[in-house]
């Protein structure tokens, strides 16, 4: 090795190198051919290692056929018998004559156990558990203005949305850099966080009495280059099966597509269009990643009858005319539905309304930095305007979000007006009538910034409206992480809060608690978390990480509403 730096670079360990060393190395690499070549070779090696060759999907069947399926059934019996023997030991000792009796008992027990095993095996249907689900829930379809079950009965989606923390987490060593660059610092997960859906969550959701969950995902989970893709799919199938066993449909909702999504947009919307992250409608690579992800999911889940449908994208934005405008937006929404249909002909597809569009030169838009109207001069400012485009396919349900009036629902500013709310739903209902009467699904919710009474009043009002217009609905949302750095009021819509990070943030001491560091203590005060912590999470000097907060009346109201419409 000629270059003296190369040894250092070989030693380089991403996790332990200091910033200064990193800078020094980066500078060197930009000028040294030898080091550069080595790093390229290392990158190629990594890519080669990660790249998964094609595997015979039915391979697992060979494995299942070659193991002894009675192995652990027998084991259980053996354990029972051994325990039985242990209990009988003193008796054996004193009475040899009883050995014959014991033998007889054992023979009866063994044969009984074997027969019952045989019964289980013999009667068991040969279920291909991994490629379909055996459930009473059959494919949902659309029929005019209704969603219907396989036997033709109208079905209202009484849903609750599981966001599954799709936006991700603060990642040490990455997030801070992103924040400094003015980008969304939260990193979308490659593997779903374990806390989002535990066994207790399944139990809680079961007790809610909803008939559908809207299951949020982000693109990265099922991206082709994610080495965990197949285990993520296995986990998703497990979740779908768990819900099906509770008679709950699962709708798969893509909350964060590749590129621009509703969360990183909070950082991008202030930037001019030229430097803003592109959306799947503007960028061809993101577009093909988006399509490939849905093709993969559609292929994997096509046998699952309890999958209610696919929500292809969340809160999309129409690009400016320069980037193709409403035409490219309509074309790509239509195309992705076509691609899914090629694989899965039966599935409902949820097509959302756009929640905004980029301005074209000459159009006025509201500039939230200066708080004034500005005339667009090619900077592609955001116009918060909503609308549907038609997808010319059967089995489409149009989806809209309903957080209205926005300032009231999210920040508790002013109050709501029943007529204005109804007008908005009516407007959408008229649009679907205009294209031939398709079903609709609304996603709605209200944050804790409003008092429980106000929240209930709003909920009852919108429920009456939804019922009048015959739309399906999903409450947004089931559970979110709580903690010092999460506002417990503004924007906190979740019914349950889970204090994920409590062991890092606080220490329990003598019947009370202390924050482990000043920053957390300060943030907790600012985010109204101190009172939430004391009221909901700290019980008798023990932390109960999952809390219903003050949302019991909300759950009751939802249950009541769902019951009426079941």
């Amino acid at each position, binding site marked *: 090795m000629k270059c003296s730096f190369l040894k250092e670079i070989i030693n380089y360990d991403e996790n332990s190198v200091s910033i200064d060393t990193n800078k020094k190395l980066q500078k060197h690499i930009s000028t040294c051919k030898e080091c550069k070549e080595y790093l390229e070779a290392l990158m190629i090696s990594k890519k*080669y*290692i990660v790249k998964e060759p094609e595997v015979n999907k039915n391979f697992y069947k060979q494995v299942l056929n070659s193991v002894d399926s009675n192995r652990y059934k027998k084991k259980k019996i053996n354990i029972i018998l051994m325990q039985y023997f242990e209990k009988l030991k003193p008796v054996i000792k004193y009475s040899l004559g009883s050995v014959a009796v014991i033998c007889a008992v054992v023979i009866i027990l063994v044969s009984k156990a074997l027969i019952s095993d045989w019964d289980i095996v013999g009667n068991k249907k040969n279920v291909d558990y991994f490629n379909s689900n055996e459930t009473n829930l059959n494919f949902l379809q659309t029929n005019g203005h209704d969603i219907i079950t396989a036997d033709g009965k109208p079905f209202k989606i009484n849903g609750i949305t599981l966001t599954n923390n799709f936006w991700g987490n603060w990642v040490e060593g990455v997030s801070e850099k992103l924040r400094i660059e003015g980008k969304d610092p939260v990193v979308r997960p490659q593997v779903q966080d*374990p806390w989002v859906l535990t066994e207790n969550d399944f139990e809680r959701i079961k007790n809610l009495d909803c008939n559908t969950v809207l299951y949020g995902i982000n693109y990265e989970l099922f991206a082709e280059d994610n080495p965990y893709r197949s*285990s993520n799919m296995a986990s998703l199938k497990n979740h779908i099966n768990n819900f099906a066993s509770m008679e709950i449909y699962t709708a798969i909702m893509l909350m964060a597509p590749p590129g621009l999504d509703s969360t990183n947009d909070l950082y991008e919307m202030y930037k001019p269009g030229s430097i803003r992250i592109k959306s799947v409608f503007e960028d061809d690579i993101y577009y093909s990643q988006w399509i490939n992800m849905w093709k993969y999911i559609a292929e994997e889940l096509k046998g699952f009858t309890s999958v209610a449908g696919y929500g292809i994208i969340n809160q999309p934005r129409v690009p400016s005319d320069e980037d193709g405008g409403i035409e490219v937006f309509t074309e790509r929404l239509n195309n992705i539905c076509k691609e899914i249909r090629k694989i899965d002909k039966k599935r409902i597809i949820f097509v959302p309304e756009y929640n905004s569009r980029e301005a074209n030169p000459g159009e006025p838009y509201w500039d939230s930095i200066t708080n004034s109207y500005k005339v667009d001069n090619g900077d592609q400012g955001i116009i918060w305007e909503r609308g549907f485009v038609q997808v010319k396919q059967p089995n489409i349900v149009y989806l809209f979000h309903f957080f209205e009036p926005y300032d009231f629902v999210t920040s508790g500013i002013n109050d709501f007006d029943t007529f204005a709310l109804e007008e908005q739903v009516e407007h959408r209902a008229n649009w679907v009538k205009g294209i031939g009467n398709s079903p609709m699904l609304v996603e709605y919710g209200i944050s804790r910034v409003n008092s429980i009474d106000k929240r209930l009043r709003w909920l009852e009002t919108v429920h009456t409206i939804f019922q009048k217009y015959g739309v399906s609905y999903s409450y947004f949302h089931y559970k979110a992480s709580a903690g010092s750095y999460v506002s417990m009021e503004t924007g906190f819509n979740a019914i349950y809060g889970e204090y994920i990070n409590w062991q890092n943030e606080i220490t329990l001491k003598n019947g009370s608690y202390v924050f482990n560091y000043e920053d957390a203590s300060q943030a907790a005060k600012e985010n109204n978390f101190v009172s939430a912590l004391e009221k909901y999470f700290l019980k008798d000097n023990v932390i109960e990480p999952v809390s219903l907060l003050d949302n019991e009346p909300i759950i009751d109201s939802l249950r009541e509403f769902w019951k009426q419409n079941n």
Partner: protein
Amino acid sequence: MTIMKHEDILISKILNGGDMESFSVLVQSYQVQLYNFVYKMINSKEDTEDILQEIFIKVYNNLYKYNNKYSFSTWVYSIAVNTVKSSYKKRKCRPSNYFIDNLIEEISSSDNCPELLIESKEYYTKIIEVIDNLKEKQKTAFVLKYLKNFSYKEIGNIMCISQEAAKMKVHRAKTILAEKLEILRKKGEL
């Protein structure tokens, strides 16, 4: 990771009553990644499926021995590593014909990386041959490091060596890569 939580449930269902559906899910969540691991270790399509099958049978038959001192994936990979090792012995010599053409094609064409100076297929093949010809233990540690981003501690547990030894093996593999590049450069093959 969510899958870990699920794995625990699945394992308990298998051990308590022999639930084959749970075993089926377990196999399916590992079959792609383990296939990849075995394939990268032995470079033979024919043998990969046989070895993989052997691994899963061992996992199943020994499942009652698994305790959660280590993560399940560490345990599974340690079985995989040992099975691959004994397959080397059985076959005595390693196959000389490579079936990596398709993969090279795919990784080189998926490259949108402008920093790459040389993108030719031959170049990729040469690099990958260096990795494939590493000594067995170095290659195992290197592949585990990048396949699943295992920590050195985990690699140590999988290979039954110390954390430091695992780190050394990866380091040695990287050094060999650098040295081989220099030889190729001298020969004018780069």
